[in-house]
């Protein structure tokens, strides 16, 4: 392992092995979570921010690993550091959120702020071990087998989720409708607020109309009525020809550079 001072840019550097026998050691870097925008799920005083987390680290494994410093309330994984709430899908099977793959960052929320301090105070030569005999972390063929088996979702859970999702959507729609049809207050005034709405093709329709008008106009226009117009079109044609000529010339030069004219 490289000889590093205990704190790098405020981060604690700690080693992480997959299991006891592993030779390679990854470095985990962590520090207290500090951000300008506070989020309820990541209270700054109780949250540890960890970077360079290897892909095979699971929430359970981290829960166990960090419980050494204090009780862990939550573990969140992200691809990139973010202050916002975790992108957990309410309906895991219909979520359109992309899963976190590869190396990632973790936010570990302890129940007490003392745990964060404890974690920051670990000696620099600490090497954590992720997978132990008692609590193995599955990887490789066994993990893939398990993943395959987990793809199968029972019909009941699936149906439940569908129902919940749809009823929530219906509710949302109703609310939106209600919002747009607000009752007049006792003085007869209606407060009109802007409602976020996915606008339909308004812009496009306008464009189309414009185009139609243009076409109409064109039809009414006399083309090549005056001599100068006639002459102009001729000149334009010539210019067009020249333009093509120039373009072709450029192409030829390019081809020449790549020696395209040596037939043998």
């Amino acid at each position, binding site marked *: 392992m490289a000889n*590093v001072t205990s704190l790098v840019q405020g981060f604690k550097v700690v080693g992480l092995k997959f299991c006891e026998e*592993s030779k390679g050691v990854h470095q985990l870097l962590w520090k207290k979570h500090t951000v300008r925008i506070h989020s309820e799920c990541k209270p700054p005083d109780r949250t540890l921010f960890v*970077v360079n987390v290897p892909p095979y680290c699971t929430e359970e494994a981290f829960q166990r690993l960090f419980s050494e410093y204090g009780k862990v309330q939550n573990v969140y994984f992200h691809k990139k550091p973010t202050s916002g709430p975790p992108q957990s899908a309410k309906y895991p099977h219909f979520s359109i959120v992309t899963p976190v793959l590869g190396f990632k960052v973790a936010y570990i929320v302890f129940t007490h702020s003392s745990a964060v301090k404890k974690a920051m105070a670990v000696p620099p030569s600490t090497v954590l071990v992720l997978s132990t005999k008692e609590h193995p972390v599955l990887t490789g063929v066994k993990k893939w087998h398990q993943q395959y088996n987990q793809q199968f979702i029972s019909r009941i859970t699936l149906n439940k989720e569908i129902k919940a999702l749809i009823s929530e*959507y219906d509710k949302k729609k109703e609310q939106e409708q209600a919002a747009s049809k607000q009752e007049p207050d006792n003085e007869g005034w209606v407060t009109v607020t802007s409602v976020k709405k996915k*606008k339909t093709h308004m812009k496009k329709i306008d464009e189309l109309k414009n185009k139609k008008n243009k076409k109409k106009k064109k039809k009414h226009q006399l083309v090549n009525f005056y001599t100068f117009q006639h002459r102009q079109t001729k000149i334009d044609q010539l*210019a067009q020809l020249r333009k093509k000529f120039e373009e072709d010339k450029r192409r030829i030069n390019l081809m020449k550079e790549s020696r395209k004219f040596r*037939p*043998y």
Partner: protein
Amino acid sequence: MKHLQVGKDNEIQASGSEDKMSNVDNSEEEADEDEDEEEDEEEDEEEEADDGFSDEEEKTDENNKRKLPEQGGKQAKSAKRDSKDGSLYKLPTMEELNTLRETQMLYHSNLFRMQMEEMLMEVSMKEQYRQQLDQWFVQFSTHLKSMVPSSEHKLCQTKWMDENGVSDPLVQDMPKARGTFLFAAPTDVQFVGSFASGTITTRNCSVDIMITLPKKCVHAADWRNGRWLVKRIKYLAWIAISLQNKTELVADLNWTTHLGSSLRPVLQVTPSGKLGKKWKVNLFPVPPPESFKAKRFSPERSNLQPAWFFSEEAKMETLPPTPHYNWACAVDIVMLEHLQLLRDCVKKHPNLAQGIKLLKIWLAQRELDKGVGSFSGHLVTLLMIHLLQTRKINPQMSAYQVFRNVIVYLGSGNWCESGPNMRAPSHADNSTLEDFHKLYEVVFVDPSGMVNMTANLIAADYLRIKHEAQLALSFLDSSAADSFEMLFIKKVEIFQLSDQLLRMRFFKSDAETVLSKTIPKYQELVMDALGDVQRVMLSSIIQLLSKGLGDRVQLLVPMRKPPAVWPLHQPPPAFKKIFIVGIVLNPTTASALLTKGPPADSPEAAIFKKFWGAKSSLRRFQDGSFHEAVLWAEPQQSIGERRLIPGKICKYLLRLHYRKKGKYVYIAKQMEGFLCHPYYKMKYNYATGEEATVSAIQAFDSLSRKLRSLDLPLKITAVQSTSDVSRHTRVFPPLAKALRVTGKAIEASGNYLKFSDLGGLYQNFDYAIEVIVFLEISGKWPDDLEAIQAIKAEFHTKMSDLLQKDSVTTVVFPKFLQILWEGYVFRVRVSYLREIYLQRLVETPQGDWQEQDTAASIQLEKHIEIIPRFTTALASIQADHPSFSGGVRLCKQWAGSQLLLPHLPHIAVELLVASLYLNPAPYMPPSTPHVTLLRFLHLLVNTDWKMTPILVNLNETFTVEDVAELNRLFLTQRSAFPHMFIVTPYELRSVPSTETSGDLQRRYKLASMWTKTSPSVQILYRSKQLAEAALSFVNAKLLKGVLNFKTIFRPSSDDFDVVIHLNHKHLCRLNESVNWTSPKPLKIKPYERHTNELMPIVMFDAAFLYLKELRDAFNHVALFFYDEHGGKFVGVVWKPSALLPQELKVGGLEGQQLVGVKEVKQVTNIEAILDDFQTIGVDLVRKISVKNT
């Protein structure tokens, strides 16, 4: 510039005056020498004020003031202002106008013209060499003319030659000629041929010099028994001896042949100095004019005595005509006459000379211009003169038009039946055209009416030229291809041209005895050729084959070697009895099962029977008639086997007619073997898998009907497959196999199989065919993306319920419905087109919704809009070209085995192969997988991806504007496009009009979406190298007739930094590997319908999952290479940037470690990552070996 947006009156006026001002400025600055271009033009304008155009500017200004509704003036003015476009509006000079007009009228296109001019410049002889040659010639001819005459020798005496180390270049087994030889200095030495007529190209780097013998050297009886042919050799030998020590004049002396004819060796002189490095000089001795009677060498005359040739024993009642011998002599006699004609016609018309050069290049690229059976440059020139005389072309035509007209002429006639006749009226008493046709296979009569210029061509040679001419014309007429490159720049190689090849080796003496029995008048022919039977043999073989193959083939192409050049002291190279004949198949008829003969009662039946031997049998046909016929295969045979029928026919005929006196190798199936699935026991033979693909597609069709019949809340309007199986491009299509029962590794759970916890081995791979389903339009779909997924799932459940009622095994997954149908597994997804639009909506900071392309929307568009259309388009190519499936799959197999997939995306390979079929120029579309692979490799090797856009015009749906616009975009914004640029019409979006730039941008936004992220330049380079190695390997093997091509399908693990060896037991697709041999045959039994079928384990491939995890985790530090068809190792290459320490970015750490004490940097933690490779693939990974550097 604000004045361009003309809206108000005063603004226009302002701009107008401004314009005038600038004009004045310019004129004032005229004296200044540092004026830029634009100003120059304006200057021009003022000078040519009387041209009528010059006051255009003022006028437009006035017009604007008059508020006339026009745009031209404005545009003109804006262009004027813009310094770059300015030159477009300058006044044309007369010359320029003429060029522009000429280009339109006389040339194919602007580009074509410029390309042509460039190329002609490239191939013309450099002026420097021309001068050097002229100087050299003066010295050389003085040397010749000052040579001392010799005393008389016997013609057959060669002692003086041997003493000086000059061998006799003539045919070895020719009897000795009688007569005497005497050397005297030539009376005349002059240039002939292409140099004299100014049509020489750098391709044929030899200049011809004609040496006229003095009268005393030639006897009146020299026409006889080969005397003249021997005499000219002796004369050359004498000159050669005198030149041997003249190092200041001559650097080297060699023998070669005139048009590859062994009867006519010529002396090739290499001039000393720089000139000789590029140019050679051939010497042609000719007899003095009128030394022989004009009709002496008419083709029907007999000038050889059998008694002389065969010694006394041979007896022939009549003296047979000796057309080829006569030709060999007469060529020398008419040389002067031809030279005069050339001077008269070609020298005067430079355009004709250029046209001749074009034709020569065209022929040279097809290797038709040299050697035996060639269409020589002299022949081209004479043909051109013939066309000029018959007014098919005229001197005013441009070089392009000349070329085109000659091509048209070549493509239309039939020189085997009535060739062109140039005979001048003064020679009208010579032999008729019919006489010529009786004696030669191909006829082109020269102006003297005595010589057949095409005497050395056999019919197959001519047909090849005719075929090429017809192809060339079709390229010129098609707008799509870059015809110039196809015609003049691309080399046409026989191995790329022929669908199949036949290699024949004869054992010399045997062959001759057989030939003497099979060919009528064999003795006469041998005598005529003075013992050189090569042409006779080849001609008879090709006649036999083409008769046997009939309309199965379009062309039989004998492979010709370039003419030999050998040192002065060596005998001529011995003739090898190896023939390679390329076969260009006719895809519609090539694999016909039956060769139908004449009706049984007709007199031809006997001939047919004799030709086909025992294989011919009497058969009754559907219309009740009886015919002789030969059956080659049973109807149930697979396409792969039927493709080999032409070879069967060839081999059978050769054995029948030439008995077992040769070795015949048929090259066609050797490559296709790599598509085989050896352990498959089914109703039909698997062979190369076309049938397996078709039956999978049939299962899809029946499923589609079933789905449509379901009673769903919304009706199903379309069922489309997006799988490569439906495109006929999956290397190993799924098979309807007997279903698995549970075992140690798998257990049943409900109606499906899953992995058990016992952890046994599972070595089966089942592929699921992806299907998308569209429902009828409804307004009730939600406009929330997650809600849409839920609705889709509800449809899936509903479908599943209905199908299960009919006892079809289905499993509902959150995102799709998996159906087991007729032994195949399908994954059905309901799709909703408006989802693309919803994915495109992005919330702006102002809280509005804006429509723009997002990664997700493009992905969705690709999957549910573009790929289904693309899939049907590729399937339609398969319908037109039955070899497409095999071809694509073979190419994919190769790319896979060389670990290029998916760095070279699957679809990119499919599209490249599709382009080989849609744009086959300069060939015909391929008709066998074998040649498809060779052309694919050739494409990878020879395409300059930086310069070449590949437009795959699927279903001909590109408009002319599209092609122009795409080419323009490619040219102007090359760096914005992927390294490999492949466009199909389907990724172009439809827009209301193509006038606005926004619309244009929208239309071409997704162009070349398939190769957007990969291949990278490095991968392209690697694929080029691999293809180059493979191609040269194959070409060498083909030439030798050794046919084990496995090597090119074997990946090398040498180039990788790390090699991860996988455990064979966990490779589910091991049996797809080219190099796999199973210890015990794995028999696959066909599927049978049962009730309560269990859904098998589908799409589970441990290696694939491993690769995915590796790429997800380490894409930023390394590239991973793996053969998806059961590859046994994963190759890893570190990215160079990953190995260097970099600035520390804590937030972006991904597997790096920190180094350094004072200045902390980050560097990839290789040791830990190597360990991760093991960790991630536990059980699958056997061993990791790291290359020592």
